């Protein structure tokens, strides 16, 4: 062995002077956060100039679906993972700018945009925020209902990833290999609905209609809550992880083992790779961006929220996203909000809730509607300080 080389290296390393790097690291972290929030696409710049122009359009009326708060007896198993949502057709999701083929579009580059414009909200009152936001810290999940200002603990002591139903009334998690489903309400026990389930690579993901859960057993599959039947995903998708449904139920967005993203339609036997993210070619991914998890998808599968990472990292820990990715181009969507993005999540209707924190440590919630209007931007209640945003529901 080369003990002499080891000794020499240690001797050389001893020459470095100690330094307190805390303040500098935190400042740089905030700069990184601001840069990531400012990174965007040409399309997003148009969004800044004309919100609601259509380039960042989320389909109107996607809330026309009627999510089943309770398992629907009519939702029996069919051979497609999208079978249940096919019973509830939604308005057209056609988007002119969408690239649907497998040909990679040219990468426009993830470069910071010169504009730092932020949108003006219709309301700055937190009680105008409809729906419910779910947060997590450790094994505790809380439900914030801004309308009445209440924050309720709905789950404690879990070590599993947790899925929240689109209506916010139910949650699903894994305990000792059993998939547990129960009310998202204090003190209401969950019931086991399946066994042999793991949650490390796949949080239980609710279908937009609330009657199915995408879970991982031996491989990823869709569990029908009424019939308890499980439909495995096609072979070409079994290598995917962290699947999430689009709000119309017609797309799945998922992470690949290389910390890239993929998109699959309901009839597809395999997915289409999202460009850029996870790509190790410098020409295609100059910033070394990666996404090891998908956490929520917009109404049509055009955009997905992810914890933004760099190539070479692993998917660990939280389901909290801090970036929105265009699934056609792999570009990061610029969010017209102030401060650093510390949480972002779509609901099944295409609303996007963004959580930001400024240099004074003030945390705000911004809700963008399906028409891209900034509906509400207000200071977040202190009751969820220290928690991570994991879901937004009706």
């Amino acid at each position, binding site marked *: *062995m*080369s*003990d*002499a*080389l*080891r*000794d*020499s*290296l*240690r*001797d*050389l*390393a*001893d*020459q*470095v*002077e*100690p*330094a*307190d*790097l*805390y303040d*500098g*690291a*935190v400042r*740089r*972290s905030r*700069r*990184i*956060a601001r840069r990531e929030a400012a990174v965007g696409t040409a399309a997003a710049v148009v969004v800044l100039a004309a919100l609601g122009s259509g380039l960042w359009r989320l389909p109107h009326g996607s809330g026309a679906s009627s999510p089943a708060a309770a398992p629907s007896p009519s939702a029996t198993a069919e051979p497609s993972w999208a079978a249940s949502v096919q019973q509830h057709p939604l308005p057209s999701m056609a988007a002119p700018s969408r690239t649907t083929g497998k040909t990679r579009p040219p990468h426009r580059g993830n470069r910071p945009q010169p504009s730092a414009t932020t949108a003006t909200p219709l309301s700055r009152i937190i009680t105008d925020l409809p729906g419910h936001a779910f947060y997590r810290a450790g094994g505790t999940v809380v439900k914030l209902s801004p309308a009445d200002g209440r924050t309720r603990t709905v789950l404690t002591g879990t070590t599993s990833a947790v899925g929240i139903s689109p209506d916010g009334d139910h949650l699903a998690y894994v305990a000792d290999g059993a998939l547990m489903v129960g009310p998202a309400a204090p003190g209401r026990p969950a019931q086991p609905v399946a066994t042999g389930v793991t949650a490390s690579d796949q949080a239980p993901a609710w279908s937009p209609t609330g009657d199915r859960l995408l879970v991982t057993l031996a491989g990823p599959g869709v569990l029908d809550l009424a019939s308890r039947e499980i439909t495995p995903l096609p072979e070409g998708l079994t290598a995917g992880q962290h699947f999430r449904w689009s709000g119309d139920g017609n797309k799945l967005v998922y992470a690949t083992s290389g910390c890239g993203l993929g998109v699959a339609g309901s009839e597809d036997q395999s997915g289409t790779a999202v460009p850029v993210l996870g790509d190790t070619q*410098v020409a295609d*991914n*100059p*910033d*070394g961006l990666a996404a090891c998890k998908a956490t929520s998808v917009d109404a049509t599968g055009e955009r997905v929220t992810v*914890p933004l*990472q*760099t*190539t*070479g*990292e692993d998917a*660990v*820990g*939280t389901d*909290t996203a*801090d970036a929105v990715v265009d699934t056609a181009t792999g570009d990061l969507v610029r969010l017209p909000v102030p401060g650093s993005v510390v949480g972002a999540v779509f609901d099944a209707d295409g609303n996007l809730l963004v959580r930001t924190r400024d240099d004074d440590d003030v945390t705000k919630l911004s809700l963008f509607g399906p028409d891209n209007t900034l509906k509400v931007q207000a200071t977040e209640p202190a009751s969820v*300080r*220290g928690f*991570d945003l994991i879901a937004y529901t009706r």
Partner: protein
Amino acid sequence: MDAREADYAHFVRTRSPALLRSAYLLTGDQHLAEDLVQEALARTHRAWGRLERPEHAEAYCRKVMYHAQVSFWRRPKVAEVLPAEFAPDERRGADDPAEAAVERLLLRRALLTLSAKQRAVIVLRFFEDRTEVEAAQLLGVSVSTVKTQTARALDRLRTVLPEARMLREAGGR
């Protein structure tokens, strides 16, 4: 400062010395080492919420640090060194009390002639005592790449430091 931030501050202040030592070998310069560690710590701060245990944080931070230094899409920052600086030091002798200091200086300069990846494998294998498998996982390359880079790095060091005692037995595990 909330509990999470306090945990991060504790992590930074307890682990920075060790990180700086590795970074100094990677960059050959105090300020560049601080810059590299600060970058890794900043990225770790960004990811702090999803790093569930302190050992995860250190592993994450080291991985970011090595990737930041060897990633081909970033221009590695290292101290500059000129070939002429490798001229043999005639004043050096076996009994010279300054020999250790001279060898240290020569080793630092020799390390800087390696590629970023070669320097990384030398630091990982012979300073951090990582196995080839661990080094490969940390750098995101194959084990054979680690073996190849290690062999080439040692050859290079032997070329630029032909008389260095430290390299006579160096081979790897």
